[in-house]
């Protein structure tokens, strides 16, 4: 375990959802720390709260209690626009169902991440560099010849590679992957995982991987198991 401060940390994080008059606890005081360059697998049965924790750590949602810290600073209570900015700068998401914009080509989907950070004029000024960076990333993930294909024209594995490239374009410190191979056959899944881990190692990213797959979890530096909203191991 690294002695440097964690890039991402959860301290006593709770999350409740209201269903009618009922208050349903999903997370009940989760503590978790992820350091730079560390690969952490989050294992647990369906309903254990893995994805909810991932969303809270990725600032897509606010915890009902506890704190989320980036580089030691609490960020869970920031205004919504500030959380969006931080999410863009610090976090890259990879989802099970890829979540690409169907109207955009692979290149445009990746470029979207750059467009979030700049104004119209700012982007116009650096559009060539942005395209070059996006192309380089897509080539790195093996899609150099699929730049102008829309998601519907790509296979599942290719789509996930586009999603990985998009997650990496803004050079985040943390990548949060929610069952990234859950929708892929085993051969394709292995290729995608190999790609993710090689990039993670190359860039020294903190990597949190939500999965059901014990084999995949075994390839990570650390495995965190969850059950009924608490970390059990």
């Amino acid at each position, binding site marked *: 375990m690294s002695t440097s401060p964690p890039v991402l940390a959860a301290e006593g994080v709770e999350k409740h959802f209201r269903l009618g008059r009922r208050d349903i606890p999903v997370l009940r005081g989760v503590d978790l720390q992820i350091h730079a360059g560390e690969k952490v697998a989050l294992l647990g049965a369906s309903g254990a709260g893995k994805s909810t924790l991932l969303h809270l750590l990725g600032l897509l949602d606010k915890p009902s209690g506890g704190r989320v810290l980036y580089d030691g600073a609490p960020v869970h209570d920031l205004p919504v*626009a500030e959380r969006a900015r931080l*999410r863009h700068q610090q976090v890259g998401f990879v989802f099970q169902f890829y979540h690409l914009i169907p109207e955009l080509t692979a290149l*445009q989907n990746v470029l979207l991440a750059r467009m979030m950070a700049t104004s*119209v004029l700012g982007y116009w000024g650096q559009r060539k560099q942005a395209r070059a960076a996006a192309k380089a990333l897509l080539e790195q993930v093996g899609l150099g010849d699929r730049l102008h294909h829309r998601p519907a024209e790509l296979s599942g594995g290719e789509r996930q590679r586009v999603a990985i490239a998009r997650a990496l374009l803004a050079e985040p410190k943390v990548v949060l992957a929610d069952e990234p191979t859950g929708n892929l056959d085993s051969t394709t899944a292995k290729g995608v995982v190999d790609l993710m881990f090689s990039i993670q190692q190359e860039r020294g990213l903190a990597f949190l991987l939500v999965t059901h797959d014990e084999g995949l979890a075994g390839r990570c530096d650390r495995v965190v198991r969850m059950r009924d909203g608490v970390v059990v191991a």
Partner: protein
Amino acid sequence: MQAFSPFLALRYLLIRRINLLSMFGVAFAVWAMLVVDGVFTGFVSDIKANVRDSAPALLLTGLPHDTGYEQLRETLERDQDVVTTAPRLRHHGLLQATMRSALGARGQRLQVSSELEFDHSDNGFALLLGIDPLREPDVVPLAGWLRRGPAELRRYGYQPEPSPVLDDPDPTRRALLQVPDEVEWRARRRAGLPTERELADFRAVWPGVLLGWPRIRSFRWLQEGDPLDLLVAAFPTTDAAGDAVLRTDSRPFAFAGWFGSGNRRMFDETTVLVPIETLRTLLGHDIHDLESIDLVTDVAIRPRDGLSDAAIAALQTRLAAAVQPLLGDGALPCVVYDWQQQNSVFLSAVELEQSMMEIVLFVVMLVSAFVIYATMHMMVVQKVKDIGILAAVGASPGGIGRVFLLCALAVAMIGAALGTAAGWLCTTYLNEIDDFMREHLGAELFPRNLFDLDRIPCHLAPSWIVTVAVAACGLALLVALVPARRAARMNPVLALSYE
């Protein structure tokens, strides 16, 4: 503004064909607003100009029946803002062609157009307006009326000449609207009436009568100088028991020409112009009685040029107040109307029609705005997952909302541009389009004859074009705020899991 908002808005705009429907809606609404309002504005502007020509700038009315003109004139013309005045006497009568049977054959021969006759049943009733032809041209463009009447008739295939009665150098003859001696002499001979054998021995005696040009429907066979009998009825005296005694009188007039004031419906169709002195005599006033000879029912007033609306309003009040003491105790208040008040019923009807049309067009605009709202709402619903993706990648809520706002704005701007271009082209070439449709399809966009117009009037003000285009874009933005706000406030976690 984050760069992704316009980028994605443009993508959605180009790829989603439903946006074409919104664009078409906006374009149609803008086109309709420009064309219909352009035509109406031109039409109302023409109508107002015509009505303005048909009425004196100011009219003193509401006078008791025994009011003399001379004392009114002195009082009115004493005001520094009054240039001149002219007496008017209103009555009613029946107009009947003399010796029409003798002229019947000619009537058949001269029938040129039946276009004017489709809905008319003329019983000869006429609103008589007694004017002083020596003073009236100073308060209304009477010479212009005499040119306009024949001009209107030429559009229907008739070829009358403008009446020369105002050109007569003899003021006595001009005051009676008398046609030249030769014209009356020949008319008498045509009608078989007794007259001198030689023209040199003949002097015209009939006063002239000027008919509004729509009366050609009943008198299409009339030639200048032809005799017309005018019958009037009045109750000028009472009997021993104090009851009013009906007195009728009639006398022949020479047809002196057609006039067209510009106000067909409210004036030309109903009114005939006769010399005021002749009308007074017909009504039983003794021409030698100085008290009765200058009776008037109204006085037309020409104010100084260049007076503001406020100055005109003040003048109206001032003149009415100055005249009231002359009318005797117990007289009802007299009033001074400006030209718009004199035609208030007609002008109000036209303006109401325009307002109603603008309301209808505004509803069209609202419908197009609703189409934009529905399209944007549908797009937000269909793009819930995209909204979640954008949020996950780092889009701010404002940036997400702006995607849909910009999309709506682009739809409205393109639609407004198309509508403006189409509207401008249609209004510029409206008459050519109407001619083409009439000739090739038998359809007429605008019944010109109904409104006595040579061409469809159209006035498209640049300020109106800008107003409509900006309003269309503003309205689109306004209605798009609701779906855009919904998109911006969407929970990204729920959006990502939306199926």
